[in-house]
């Protein structure tokens, strides 16, 4: 029996451990499914593969390269460690070897991944294809190298931001690339959802437009983690038909997946023992048994804490290495390379990481994985769990829940997790704001013809709007860019609008920018005296210059956080779909007026209110989409207006959290407003709005699957062991009323009956 199997047996026999286990799932081992190299593969490339120890392809790799050979666009859906890079490197290298002028563009969401890929390409291709030029082109590329990459780089590895702001607006300098572009590879496709995905889809529209100008029509090869709708998302991103390859031919060892819920320590408040401490205990046991483990936690602060605990727990002699490392985005590339290599070699016994290691970086396969808190989506959970699992033997994944409602729901309903396909990734490339901004960028790149489509959207009105705004000049049916500006500079692909508030850390003599917040969230998160959390550290906002869009913060170390009171006024502008019935539901366009007028200081753990203060900021306005549900009097069965109000308040706290189960987004992306007598409907109404100007597709999705969402909400409320409401379900009773929980449940019954 391996050490891991022994440890698992011990745990199974420990009643105190098992009392907190809500599920112990055993996923059987699976044989690999193999295919021979395709006959059309260049023999030198075959030799290079064999030299690297690869004698056959997995079935999914074979399917992928065959589909590419048939000139189809392909999306390969694979968990980690199943050789996805070969799915694109093989066809690309093969073509370059046959036609040396071939060019390919590889897009990765981060620079770290880009650098890994080039290293891998050079290794694989170096022997077989000695004249191969593969380079990363991003902010770190040396100026001297840039020109030769433009002219002669066969494979240019970059990220969407660089493509958007540096390459496309200077496409004439890249004429050799575009004229010979045969492949565009998009990795980590599932990352391109929400606002980011909506932007990237438009960047690809611009890319294709420029390719057409130079007479090129490249093939797309995409790779994605497991999501419910890979084909749909791929099609949304590239605007063309795509073949989805979903099978996985890689072999897999037997996997034990444990769902663990820390025990309750305070019934009234519904508080549980900290998940961090539970994780620490389990990790210490694994490390002591020399089982190579990865621990995922959601914040950088968590990484640092766990590292300290674990290293402290091991009695290490001075000068000796504990073999435990932290890993997060802020580390230098050299440090990260060393940790990755150490993991592959086995010299590093445990690594504590944020979800930075969820992405495809090769760290070999570990034996065990512990997740501190639900990663936020089923897809991410499988990805993280997938880091543990060798070809043979036994592997372990443990999900330790924290007290957030979503976590409690997942750990209490393991059937849901194991039975369900992962979430659908959503994006809305035709969000009017995002679309308009990219039409601007596209017009800078090439003039627009009157009836030209952008992607599949006719953009005539946008062009006319931009002409009225004196950005474009129309002549003879063409719209030309005619402004002294560089539009790509004004747009960040990771936010919805152009106006972000920049957060400046003034603790040290040299101020530095540590982050950005969109201007709609700014009043809530960075008002003066707010405690702003970033990278696991606390900062206090000393001054907010809203006009200049700058927030000045100073590092602090306090025992409380702040919570601002957001008064939201919502006005319905347009209904896109509605349905009557016992309850009425609809979705459409709304205008949100938000005013932050005061904030509270709340102590950690106890959640006591220890202070408050005013906030002096102007009202902000945003247009977006929303889903709403209204309760006609008849449906309420005699509930008093006060009860309805409490119930709605409870739902407003609970539902956005639960909805994100289904939406593959951050719970903060969705906000709720309840109106006891909504001006638009005249009825008690709950609104759920996309917290991004223009909307990113949540509202229409919720309209379709609302029953699932409210069912899940009911589950959470019913299962919650608090008596009258707590932060883990409908919100604390002082917020929603003494019987807020009961009333919320009543309303849920009304919706679901």
């Amino acid at each position, binding site marked *: 029996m391996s050490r891991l199997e022994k440890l698992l047996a011990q745990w199974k026999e420990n009643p105190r451990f098992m009392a907190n286990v809500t599920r112990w799932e055993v996923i059987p081992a699976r044989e690999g499914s193999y295919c021979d190299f395709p006959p059309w593969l260049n023999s030198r490339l075959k030799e290079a593969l064999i030299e690297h120890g690869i004698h056959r392809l997995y079935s999914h790799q074979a399917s992928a390269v065959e589909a590419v050979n048939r000139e189809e666009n392909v999306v390969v859906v694979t968990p980690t460690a199943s050789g996805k890079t070969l799915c694109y490197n093989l066809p690309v290298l093969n073509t370059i070897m046959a036609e040396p002028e071939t060019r390919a563009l590889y897009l990765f969401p981060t620079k770290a991944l880009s650098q890994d890929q080039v290293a891998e390409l050079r290794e694989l291709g170096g022997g077989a294809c000695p004249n191969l030029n593969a380079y990363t082109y991003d902010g770190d590329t040396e100026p001297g190298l840039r020109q030769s990459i433009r002219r002669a780089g066969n494979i240019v590895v970059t990220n969407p931001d660089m493509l958007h702001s540096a390459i496309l*607006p200077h496409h004439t300098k890249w004429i050799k690339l575009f004229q010979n572009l045969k492949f565009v590879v998009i990795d980590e496709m599932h990352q391109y959802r929400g606002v980011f995905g909506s932007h990237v889809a438009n960047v690809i529209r611009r890319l294709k437009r420029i390719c057409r100008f130079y007479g090129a029509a490249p093939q797309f090869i995409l790779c994605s983690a497991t999501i419910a709708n890979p084909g749909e998302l791929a099609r949304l991103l590239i605007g063309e038909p795509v073949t989805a390859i979903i099978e996985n031919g890689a072999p897999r060892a037997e996997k034990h997946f444990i769902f663990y819920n820390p025990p309750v320590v305070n019934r009234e408040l519904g508080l549980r023992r900290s998940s961090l401490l539970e994780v620490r205990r389990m990790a210490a046991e694994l490390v002591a048994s020399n089982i190579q483990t990865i621990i995922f936690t959601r914040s950088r602060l968590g990484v640092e804490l766990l590292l300290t605990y674990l290293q402290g727990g091991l009695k290490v002699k001075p000068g000796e290495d504990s073999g435990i490392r932290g890993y997060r985005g802020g580390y230098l590339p050299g440090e990260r390379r060393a940790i990755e290599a150490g993991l592959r070699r086995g010299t590093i016994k445990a690594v504590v990481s944020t979800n930075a290691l969820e992405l495809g970086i090769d760290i070999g396969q570990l034996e065990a994985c512990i997740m501190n808190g639900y990663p936020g989506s089923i897809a991410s959970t499988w990805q993280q769990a997938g880091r543990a699992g060798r070809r043979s033997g036994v592997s372990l994944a443990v999900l330790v829940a924290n007290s957030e409602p979503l976590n409690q729901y997942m750990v209490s309903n393991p059937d849901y997790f194991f039975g369900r396909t992962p979430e659908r990734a959503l994006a809305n490339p035709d969000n009017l704001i995002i679309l308009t901004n990219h039409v601007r960028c596209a017009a800078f*790149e090439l003039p627009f013809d009157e009836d030209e489509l952008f992607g599949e959207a006719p953009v005539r009105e946008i062009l006319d709007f931009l002409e*009225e705004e004196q950005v474009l000049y129309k002549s003879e049916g063409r719209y030309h860019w005619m402004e002294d500006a560089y539009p790509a500079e004004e747009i960040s692909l990771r936010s919805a609008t152009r106006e972000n508030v920049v957060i400046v850390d003034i603790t040290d003599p040299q101020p530095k920018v540590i982050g950005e917040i969109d201007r709609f969230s700014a009043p809530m998160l960075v008002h003066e005296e707010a405690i702003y959390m970033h990278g696991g550290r606390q900062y206090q906002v000393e001054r907010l210059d809203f006009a200049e869009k700058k927030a000045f913060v100073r590092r602090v170390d306090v025992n409380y956080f702040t919570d601002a009171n957001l008064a939201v006024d919502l006005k319905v502008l347009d209904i896109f779909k509605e349905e009557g019935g016992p309850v009425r539901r609809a979705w459409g366009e709304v205008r949100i007026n938000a005013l932050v007028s005061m904030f509270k200081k709340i102590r950690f753990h106890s959640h006591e209110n220890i202070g408050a203060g005013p906030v002096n900021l102007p009202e902000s306005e945003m247009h977006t989409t929303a889903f709403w549900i209204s309760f006609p009097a008849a449906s309420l069965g005699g509930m008093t207006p006060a009860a309805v109000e409490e119930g709605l308040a409870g739902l407003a706290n609970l539902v956005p959290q639960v909805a994100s189960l289904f939406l593959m987004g951050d719970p903060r992306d969705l906000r709720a407003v309840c109106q006891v007598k909504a001006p638009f409907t005249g009825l008690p109404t709950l609104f759920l709005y996309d917290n991004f100007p223009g909307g990113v597709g949540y509202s229409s999705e919720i309209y379709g699957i609302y029953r699932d969402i409210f069912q899940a909400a009911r589950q959470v409320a019913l299962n919650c062991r608090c008596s009258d409401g707590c932060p883990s379900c409908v919100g604390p009773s002082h917020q929603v009323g003494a019987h807020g929980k009961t009333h919320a449940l009543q309303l849920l019954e009304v919706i679901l009956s």
Partner: protein
Amino acid sequence: MSGEIRSRLQRLRSTGELHGSSSAKPPQPVLRRAFLFPGEERIEETAAGSCYLRELRFPLHKYHGNTPLGKLLDCRGSALALPAKDQSLTALNPSRSLFLDIETTGLSGGTGTWIFLIGLGWVAQDEFILRQYFLRHPREEKAMLAHFTGLMEKYTDVVTFNGRVFDLPLIATRQILTGLIPTKPERHLDLLPCSRRLWKERLGSCSLRFLEENLLGFQRHDDIPGWEIPSVYFNYLRRGETARLRSVFHHNVLDILSMAALLTRVAETAAEKELEYPADYYSLGKLYSEAGETESAIRCLGRIISCGDRKLEHTALLQLSLIYKRLQRWTEAAALWRKLLERQPHDLTAYIELAKYYEHKTGEYEKAFALTSQALQRTRRRNFAPAAGELSLPALQHRLSRLQRKLKVSQGE
């Protein structure tokens, strides 16, 4: 449905979620373009349509600032090759070169930047001809570029000011966008890097304007500021306004005339004609040294070691000493280092170079040791930031220890 998007766009603009342009003026229906330069302008026909140009002629005896245009005829490519660090320019003949300067709708150089004015100058018989192509309308771009390319291809040599980074790449971009083959001149002289190498130390700024005023003796009056130029074109295009447009043409004319005068000055300086300032000899000395023409470098630097400017003298002495060192002319080098030490320099290089000489060339370890100690002492006494490399505290200490060991060994311990 179509009005709906329009009204949504307007709503978004009113809340600031969408932005239009920064310019405030509303567009007006454009009137017939008035003639800008009667007598000087004409329309040319090409296969791609018509284009507009204006031509001026200047007699070669005309002065621009303190230089007559005709001096171009006396300039030699060989003199230009040195400050341009490009030997191929030895073959350049300024009287058969094309001067080029463009005016654009922005400085980003990306594909959304238009060239609306192409200014060109060249010598023909007894005149300096100045031609300006103007983009009356975006639809004439291809014709304008085609006609201009026809002219440019007749010249092997092109002269610009910052053209390597701005003008030429943008011309290539516009050519590609209109479906023309991008042209690349056989030889290109960019006067900006030349000017910097010759005069940056002495003058500080090397903007064309600054050089004009401080080197070429030319003052502009009421010149249109660069940042305003794009909006002048936009107002012309959208509202038919031409008043300020004339200023842009004039600005461009002055730029080209200044380039011609500047080229003359660069050539004369590089040929050491009438050099007033020792700093210019220093720049030349450095250029010769970098080009491997050591005798010329020695000659130029030698001229200024007693010029009266202490700082310049010091730098010249140091540069000269390093040249001798590279040539392995040790006695001459050492003499210069000793001379430097007499002047009590702030810079400790001479101490260390002389110490190295004594250590490795003459074996006089005591002298080397003494010099290194002095350098260390002076480093410790001063309060400013420590030097890097050889002159840093750790490096000096390392050197001292090594010399100490060698001394012990040579004293037979």
